[in-house]
Every structure is written in structure tokens, then in C-alpha cells.
């Protein structure tokens, strides 16, 4: 098969995956409204199927482009959505916490929707972008951002749960605050570990490509900002009394920073990452 054919398959898989996420989102919401387990199970199936198709889209993209598909806005956005879904499915499997889907799928859908608006043209890479360290850097960013996406959704639930304390559905399907706090913490830990590695691998790449491992470029600075916010989150959880609500708020702010680091910095602030 020619690379063009692979890219055509990618197009089809991507579109079906996007529709799949949309369907999963609607089903999760219905699950919330109708409160029927069957609907929830269906939503899980749609999310998992969309994820598989999405994986197929990324693989065919990689084959079609003849390189790791992580080099422009479109490729990173679609991988970012994939990362959130991957982390969500892991957390779903581990914590059997389906209602989270109602909060995660809109985020996935927004990110993949953003990807759909980007140019899908495959362009050859400039020499500085042809680096294994860059591929490692961006792959870890996907996992990190995915985990933060999950913690964002869990923290939103935490904040909402406080308002819905006496709803029986919330009590049955949404874990109690201590557990929500714990799940959010697990997601942030995963994200924080990988974000640290994102910064280290990025520094190694920058050192090899530009000769300086840290140059306070806006994108670097914003990843540090995000990192500090999550460091504050981690300490807030430890110091008693601040656990729970303020930590949840920080996880929400942290994810907003993640999104800004990813989209806002490229478009609003100048820097060496702006061609990415």
C-alpha cells in the first residue's frame, strides 16, 4: 500500500473514532440522567471501541507519514486526546468508576475536535525536530497530559459532589470524597512523574539541538508553571486541613495550565516551540 492509502485509512478511522467518542459522551450523560447501568456499560463499550479505532488511526498515520506521528499541532492534538482516553480506560479498569466517563469524554471530544480543525498535511520535518529525544519527550507529554485530564475530571466531580451530597445517584455511583481525592491524587502522581520526565527529556533534546537545556522559553516556562501548580497540589494534600477542596481546585487550575501550555503558548506567546 502507498503512504497515501494509509493516510486515507487514517482519515476514515479518525472520523469514526471521533464519532465514537461523541456517542460515548452522549451515552455517559444518558447514564447520568437515566441512571441505568446498561447505558453505562454501552458507553464504556463505545469509549473502548473509539479508543481502538483511534489507536488504528495513529498507527496508520505513523506508517503513512513514515515517522513517529507526533510532530505537528494535528498529530499532537489527536495523540493528546488518545492519551486522555488511555488513562481514563486504565482508571476505569482499576477503580471501576464509570461515572467519570461523563466528565472525561467531553474533554476528549474537545481535544480531538481541536485536532480535526488542524491541517492534516504530512510535511517533512526540519532537522531540529528529527530527534529520538523529541519523540520520547512528546510521548511522555501525552501520558502526562492524559493523566492530568483524568485528574481534572475527578476533581470537578469532587467539587460537584460537595454540592450534591444528598442525591442517592451520586452516593451510589460516585465514590465518596476521600476516594475521589485519592483517585485524583493517583492521576496527578502519574501525570507529575511523567511531566517531570517531559521536562527532563525536553531539556536533553534542547541541549542537543540548541545547546542550552533550559532557556526560559515561554513553553518551557509554562511547563514549569504547570509543574509548580501540581507540586503545590501534592503538598496541599499532605498538609492536613488543606486536603480535598483546595487540592481539587489546584488540580483543575493545573489542567487549565496544561491546555494553555499546549495551545495558548503556541498561539499567544513567541518562542522556539512556536513552529511545533
Amino acid at each position, binding site marked *: 500500500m502507498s503512504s497515501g492509502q494509509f493516510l486515507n485509512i487514517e482519515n476514515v478511522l479518525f472520523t469514526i473514532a471521533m464519532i465514537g467518542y461523541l456517542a460515548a459522551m452522549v451515552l455517559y450523560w444518558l447514564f447520568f440522567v437515566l441512571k441505568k447501568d446498561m447505558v453505562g456499560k454501552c458507553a464504556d463499550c463505545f469509549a473502548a471501541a473509539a479508543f481502538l479505532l483511534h489507536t488504528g488511526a495513529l498507527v496508520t498515520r505513523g506508517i503513512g507519514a513514515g515517522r513517529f506521528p507526533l510532530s505537528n499541532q494535528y498529530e499532537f492534538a489527536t495523540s493528546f486526546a488518545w492519551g486522555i482516553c488511555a488513562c481514563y480506560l486504565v482508571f476505569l479498569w482499576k477503580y471501576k468508576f464509570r461515572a467519570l466517563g461523563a466528565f472525561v469524554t467531553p474533554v476528549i471530544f474537545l481535544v480531538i475536535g481541536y485536532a480535526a480543525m488542524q491541517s492534516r498535511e504530512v510535511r*517533512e520535518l526540519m*532537522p531540529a525536530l528529527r530527534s529520538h529525544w523529541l519523540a520520547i519527550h512528546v510521548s511522555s507529554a501525552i501520558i502526562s497530559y492524559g493523566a492530568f485530564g483524568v485528574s481534572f475530571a475527578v476533581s470537578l466531580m469532587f467539587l460537584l459532589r460537595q454540592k450534591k451530597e444528598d442525591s442517592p445517584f451520586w452516593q451510589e455511583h460516585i465514590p465518596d470524597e476521600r476516594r475521589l481525592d485519592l483517585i485524583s491524587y493517583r492521576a496527578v502522581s502519574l501525570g507529575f512523574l511523567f511531566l517531570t*520526565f517531559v521536562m527532563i527529556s525536553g*531539556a536533553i533534546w534542547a541541549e542537543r539541538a540548541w545547546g542550552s537545556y533550559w532557556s526560559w522559553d515561554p513553553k518551557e516556562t509554562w511547563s514549569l508553571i504547570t509543574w509548580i501548580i501540581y507540586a503545590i497540589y501534592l*503538598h496541599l494534600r499532605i498538609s492536613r486541613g488543606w486536603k480535598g477542596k483546595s487540592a481539587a481546585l489546584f488540580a483543575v487550575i493545573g489542567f487549565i495550565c496544561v491546555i494553555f501550555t499546549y495551545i495558548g503558548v503556541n498561539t499567544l*506567546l513567541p518562542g522556539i516551540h512556536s513552529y511545533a
Partner: protein
Amino acid sequence: MKKIARIVFSMKFALVLLGILLAACLAGSVIPQGKDASYYLSEYSEQAGGAILALGLDDVFHCSWFVALAAVLCLNLTGCNIVHFPSLAVRSKNGFSPDRFRRSGHAKELFESSVPEELFQACGFHRLVRENSADGKDCIYGVKNRPGIWGAWFCHLGMLIVILGFGLGQMKQVSFAVYGVPGQTKPVEGTGYELTIDDFEVDLRPDDTVEQYTASITMRDTGTSESRSGQTSVNHPATLFGMRCYQNSTGWAAKVQVYKEDSLVQEEILCAGEQMDVEDKEGLTLVFAAFYPDYEEGEDGMPRTASSGLKNPAYLYRLYYRGEILGMNVLAANEAITVDAYTIIFTDPQNYTLIQIKRDPFTWLAAIGAVVVMAGLILAFYLRTEEVYAEQKDGNVWSVSGYSRKGGAEFTDLLVQKQKETEGGKSAG
């Protein structure tokens, strides 16, 4: 004094410092950095511009209060680690025993079991301690992932090393740029070395985009005449005499020849953007403003290049006499500039390379710090210390408890689940 130390070494103070660091980063990313004072005064209102300059926000990451902030954060991290070290060491040495477990109040019964040993082994506790407690009861105790308690400590240590490595690097690093075309040798200012560009290649793909830039270089110690050669390309710097040589950027250069009535009086290689004084005619200056490898006139009448291939070279020049402009034009390959008795021609267009030479003697320190941070994070998040304990009640019935500070309810839930699996759910839950 003790009180001050307690505040300075506290986590609350650390959070305040992180907050200030956050604000500094925000300012540094939003306000353009390193511009002239006049820029801030004209771009922002007079008061805002004045405030930016007064607070050093025009160069946040190098201003004195930022350096002081980093120093205080280091102090805070060091203090925090010193304060916590003794208790961690004691806990690590003597903190994990059945007796400790009971005394810390963790021995709260989760369920009863008839086969606690089997259960604990199923949960991954392979080395179990069996002993008689003070009140004569049999007990079984197991602990897993003990190094996990050091996670945060190592993370803090690593951060400290990273900040130190980065800070020292900022103070001690040196950086030089040398550019030229193959065959040229230039001094690396202030180092006693000189750099020869042996070769420079630009690999183009069929669509004229660049695949790679590769320079072959030789560095020579002018004192000892010792020399080292290497190749540097984008993402693959060479290391010569402990200095990292980066293929940083490229551009076009050309040979400029000045003739006076048919005899060559001056010949130089000029890079686009450079200028030269015509030695034979005082006051005459030539500026090689731009080069177009595949020249064409754009729709707006401005010169531009149709591709990056060397197909139809043209040179944009400006000529000055005692500071007054004499002329400006685009010169095709076979054209010449004539001024009085002088003829100037451009030939041999070729790529020049800009090699950035750097030495940061502390990168290794920051790298070690980064490894320690990662190790600390893995210890803190994924080696969660867990303890299990069973105390015989009567006969074959044991009271089982478990504790994990980081694992929380997740760990005790796992114990309950494993209990159901090992005993088929027949025990009381």
C-alpha cells in the same frame, strides 16, 4: 532563632516560595524579556513600564530578587531535608516491627481470617515476622516497599542538586559563535583555540526541504598546536576539547572581488548581512544585504527566491561612500558593480555555517539532580510502604489489619478483596 528556622524550613514557607516562583514565571512568560528600557516605556503605560523596570521584570529570570528567591528555596529544601532526615532514618531502621505497628494504633481489625499467612503472601508480603506479643498473643507482621518512605526526601534532594547545577552553570558557562565557509579558520575569541571549517554540507530532499546540515570541523589549541576534528550536525553536536560544538544555523556567503582596471586588488568572503570596506578607496563600503539562490521578482515587485536550490543566484547589495548611499540593486551572477575605476563582482555563492561553541561545566550536576528527582518520585508514588498485621484471637481465628499511609483505603480494600479470594469469602467481612 529556633523559631525562625522552624518557619524557614517549613512546608508552608515552601508553598509561599513556590507561589512567588509561579508569579515570577507568569511575569517572565507574558512580558517580553531582555529588551531595551525604551521598549517597556513605549509599549506599556509610563507607570507600568517604570514598574516593570524597577522590579526587574524585563529580565525576571536573571534579576537579583529571582536569584535570591532560588537561594532561599534551596535553603528551605536543605533545611526541610535536614529536619526530616533523623526521623526518616529512625523509621527506616526501627520503625517497622509488630510492636511499632501496634503502638502506632494501626492494629484496627479489618476482618477475621483463618489463614493470614496465605493471605499476606498472596498480597506480596513474602518475609513475614512471627512473634509473641507482650501480652502473650501470637502475631504475624509483614512490611513491603520500605524504601518508599524516602521518596519525597530524594525528590527534594534532587531538586536542590538541579537548582545548584543550573545556577552554577549559569555563572560558569561560556558560549562563542564562529561562522564561515569551508577552508576558513577563525579564532574562538578568548579561549586560545581556533576553529577550521573543513567542510559544510546541506542535504536537500527532492522537494528542496532540508534533511540535515553537517559541518566537519577542526579545533586547534594555538598554544600546544594540538588539534581535534569532528563532525557536527543538528541534534548531534561534536565535543572537542571538552567544548560542545553545535551546528546552529546557516546562510549564504559569496566571494567578493574588487578589481581596479583589470587587476585584482581585494578578495574576501562575505556572508549575507556583512559589509566590507574597499581598502583601495577610502570611504567606499559595500554591504552584502541578501542572497537569493533562485531569484525571481515577486508580485509586489520585491526580490525573492523561488526555491532553496542554487538555480539562479542573485545578490542584493548596497554601496556607501562616506556614509552616503551610492546605490542599491540586485545583481545577477554575471553582472558587476562599477564605481569610478573599480569593478566589484560576486562569485562562488556557497553556504556558510554558524557553529555555536559552548561549555557548561555543571550540566552533569543538573543531570544527576534530574535522575535523583525521578528516582524520588518513583519511590514516593510507586513504592508505597505497606504493612500487614495479624493477631491470634482464639484458636484458628486471627484479627487482620493493614496500613499504608500513601495507599490509604485503596490498600485496605485490596486486603479485603484478597481475603475474599483466598478464603472464598467465607470469613466475616
